[in-house]
């Protein structure tokens, strides 16, 4: 029994990381209606910038290094919009998609130019998990799940209680109409990118804390994060969390029954089935951002 409970727990943790990545994607997708392939690179940049500030010559402690690192990630996120996406919003969506693939290539290779392709680590010693009722969880994992939930709550409050959040939702509903109604488009756009980059950067840091750093680290979790977005209903913040948790649990529980070589297959098959059975997303009825 504890075995299955632990699998569920692992699924929850993995899912909360997917969710943390998915939120940025879902915001961008909700407002601009395109899949930002370069989101994974924001994740990697977040993690690497922490490393930059934590290593000599700057040598900040990790939690302090996080601050300038996130600022840097946000800067990259806003720059993506300023120099590329902004000019393409009027065009065909596939144009945006391909441009984001280009941005992704560019950012990933810049990363490799600076830090090389080798694996890196923050050098945190592994610790034994905390044992609780036969379950085991590490402080890092707790931190990951906690941060994911905390950020989502903050975001939800931001979206539903503040004027800026409301304008953002208006734009997500209908961009042209919102512009006509006098919603400050510029501010909304920047806000979306700041939020997306913020989530990506923090997510990247946590992922690196749990495992290690490499230039492609963001890419690996991207497909599933995007699937989480769609499962939860595009633009729906809570949906992204639930979608992420769903995928995380599905693939982890599947390991008990199938060859782990089919780990991804299980989650993909479920995504496929769900897409077909409930195209509006599993949690389409829940009210979130939209």
């Amino acid at each position, binding site marked *: 029994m504890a075995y299955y409970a632990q699998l569920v727990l692992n699924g929850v943790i993995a899912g909360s990381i997917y969710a943390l990545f998915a939120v940025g994607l879902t915001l961008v997708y909700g407002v601009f209606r395109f*899949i930002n392939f370069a989101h994974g690179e924001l994740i990697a940049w977040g993690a690497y910038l922490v490393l930059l500030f934590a290593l000599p010559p700057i040598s900040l402690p990790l939690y302090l290094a996080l601050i300038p690192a996130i600022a840097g990630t946000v800067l990259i996120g806003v720059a993506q919009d300023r120099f*590329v996406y902004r*000019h*393409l919003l009027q*065009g*065909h969506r*596939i*144009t*945006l998609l*391909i*441009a984001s*693939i*280009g*941005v*992704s*290539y*560019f*950012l*990933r*290779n*810049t990363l*490799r*130019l600076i830090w*090389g392709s080798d694996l890196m680590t923050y050098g945190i010693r592994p610790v034994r998990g905390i044992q609780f009722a036969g379950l085991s969880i590490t402080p890092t994992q707790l931190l990951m799940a906690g941060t994911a939930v905390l950020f989502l709550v903050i975001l939800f409050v931001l979206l539903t209680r503040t004027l800026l959040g409301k304008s953002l939702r208006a734009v997500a509903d209908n961009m042209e109409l919102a512009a006509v109604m006098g919603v400050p488009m510029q501010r909304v756009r920047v806000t979306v990118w700041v939020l997306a980059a913020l989530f990506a950067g923090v997510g990247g840091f946590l992922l690196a804390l749990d495992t290690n750093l490499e230039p492609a680290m963001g890419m690996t979790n991207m*497909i599933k994060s*995007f*699937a989480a977005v*769609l499962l939860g209903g*595009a633009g729906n913040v809570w949906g992204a969390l639930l979608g992420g948790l769903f995928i995380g649990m599905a693939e982890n529980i599947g390991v008990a029954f199938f*060859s782990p*070589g*089919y780990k*991804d*297959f299980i989650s*993909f*098959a479920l*995504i*496929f089935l769900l*897409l*077909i059975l409930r*195209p509006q997303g599993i949690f389409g009825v829940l009210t979130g951002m939209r």
Partner: protein
Amino acid sequence: MDYLLHILIVALIYAVFAMSLNLELGYAGLYNFGHVAFFGIGAYTSALLSLAGLPVPLGMACAMVAAGMAGALLCVPALRLTGDFFGIATLVFAEMVRLFFLNERWLTKGPMGLPGIPRPSWVGTGIAAMPMFLVLCLLLTVSVFLLVRWVAVSPFGRALKVVREDEYVAQALGKNVFSLKTRAVVAGSVLAGLAGSLWAHYITYISPGDFTLNETILVLLCVVLGGKGTNWGPVLGAFAVVFFQEALRFLPIPADLGRLIAPLQGMVYGLALILIMLQRPEGVISEYRRSRVC
């Protein structure tokens, strides 16, 4: 110049692959992000059958049939979805197909791949086969090109464009949208299967790693850069992409900077993509150019 022959063959195979995607993306407006699945199914079918002793042309025919059937199979559920949802469903489907190749070792030898795939006996073996293989590819590419063009200018192609422009209008005008899309996907899959089987017989070695999302992205680039919804666009795009990638090999960069070359190339590649999308988003050949003149 076997190297040039090699690039030409690769470019031609990609041209077929790109034309098959263009049928779906350009004409029918279907965002198929898993097109490599059909390329892979074609490659594996053809490779396995010809390794089992079947003549290569028969293997290629079977590859097309298998890919087409897989396409039809995908359509039944996936075409209920539209736009990005169809895209993500196909992407996921392609990953599932790849994982099948990777894990079903009794059939595909899994990650070890299938070496020693034979070439058609009449093109010869080894390096001597290159010119004949080029001729084969050229013949097939030209036939596919003519075929696709024939379909594109037919009322069928026009109906596909209606579906692409506005599904509601298409329905209101009595078009069976589901059936039209299905036929587009099946036709696209059959041609992708042909491209995949050509690939397998040319390279003579395939493994699941050859059929990842990266390949889909590459062929997507061919179509979009060349100009989607046009006849020449995908062909031009395929040649441009293949030649551009190979040309990067010739950039005179000192060997001491070896470590920097690859990332720099990647940066150039990314930057080029961004610039092209900013400057000429409709691709080199525009579908609407003719009408813009008048």
